[in-house]
């Protein structure tokens, strides 16, 4: 009995360290088991890693997958053009329809306004003009509603492209740079297509027309929005010629500081 007790004591002394290690290991195993076998435990361990990964992917998605996604979309669109057209047709159709309806409403409002003036002085003048000119009153009204507008006018030195003066209804981007680029485009076109003494006279851009009139040391560019008819063009030509003759030639040395005022007076 005493021997057994002693042996037990000896074992305790000898294997104390091992026992402790075993107990630690056991508690760790229980901990791991809890973490792996229960949903809550697993979530607590895995969620932070997943969140980090998701954040990384969110932040780097365009770089990591952008080219591949773009390629896939391009391929898909190319391979299924009919389907794409079919899908987009109603949307685009609705947009176009909406735009046309809005524009028609505006036109109708303008026509109404003109008809309200039917018995006014302008109305009678229009009617008389129609009778003598052989043009219907309706055509005259439509013509009046679709009048072209002079948006901007530039007086630019030939060759150097330096801006002498300008008048603008809305302030666009840097007018010095526009003058320079216009001169460069003009020089390029003339160099490429000119057959001797020919000048670039018009540039068309969507609903805008740039009418260019050349003089010896300068040229004038008028930016027009809306449909340009012959009557308007002739009138503008005449105005530009008069301006060039009376303002620019009279002054000899072109006064840049006075130019804006002159342009505003002549073309506003």
């Amino acid at each position, binding site marked *: 009995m005493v021997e057994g007790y002693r042996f037990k004591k000896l074992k305790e002394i000898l294997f104390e360290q091992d026992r402790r290690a075993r107990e630690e290991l056991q508690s760790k195993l229980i901990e791991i088991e809890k973490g792996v076998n229960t949903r809550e435990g697993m979530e607590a361990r895995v969620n932070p890693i997943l969140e980090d990964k998701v954040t990384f992917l969110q932040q780097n998605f365009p770089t990591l997958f952008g080219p591949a996604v773009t390629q896939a979309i391009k391929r898909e669109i190319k391979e299924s053009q009919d389907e794409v057209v079919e899908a987009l047709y109603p949307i685009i159709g609705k947009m176009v329809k909406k735009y046309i309806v809005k524009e028609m409403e505006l036109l109708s409002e303008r026509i109404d306004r003109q008809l309200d003036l039917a018995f006014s002085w302008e109305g009678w003048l229009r009617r008389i003009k129609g009778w003598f000119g052989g043009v219907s009153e309706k055509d005259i009204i439509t013509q009046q509603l679709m009048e072209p507008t002079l948006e901007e006018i530039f007086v630019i030195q030939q060759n150097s*492209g*330096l801006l002498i003066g300008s008048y603008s209804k809305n302030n666009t981007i840097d007018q*010095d*740079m526009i003058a320079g680029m216009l001169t460069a485009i003009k*020089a390029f076109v003339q160099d490429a297509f000119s057959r001797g003494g020919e000048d670039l006279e018009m540039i068309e851009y969507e609903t805008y027309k740039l009418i260019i009139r050349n003089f010896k040391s300068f040229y004038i560019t008028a930016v027009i929005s809306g449909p340009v008819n012959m009557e308007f063009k002739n009138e503008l030509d005449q105005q530009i010629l008069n301006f060039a003759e009376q303002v620019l030639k009279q002054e000899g040395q072109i006064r840049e500081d006075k130019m804006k005022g002159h342009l505003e007076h002549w073309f506003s």
Partner: protein
Amino acid sequence: MDITKKVVLIGKFGVGKTSLVQRFVHQKFSDEYLTTIGVKIDKKIVEINGKKLSMLIWDIAGESSHQKIPSSYKLGAQGIFYVFDLTRPSTFGDMSVELNELENILSGVPIKIVGNKKDLISPESFDALRKQLSPNILYCSAKTGENVEKAFYELGTEMLA
């Protein structure tokens, strides 16, 4: 009132004219104009001796075998930058001939000769080149920005003189 002057940048293909302008100005027009019509215009307003000078910089593309640039782009210039590449002797070999041609077209217009890409040559090669070339050349680097502002201000001062 601002004084506006036209400045042209001339030099062979790839000498770094566009990079020099990019260093000096905040660009408004795309560089695509350079490949389409052979010129791109930028603007920089500088103050020199109390005067505001608006520099309209015409960056003219260097001619290559497949692209001919209209010579009319140079007309009316009031200042010229002649740019060459310090690492490529072919870009400054016939410099005197080209400068003479420019003098014929734009007589009396101030010219600033700029040797670009200084950052790409060793100090020994640079010293050797400097002894060989004209003393009026300004050496700069569009990459590091060395002497870029100085080049434009010096030309501006000459144009206003």
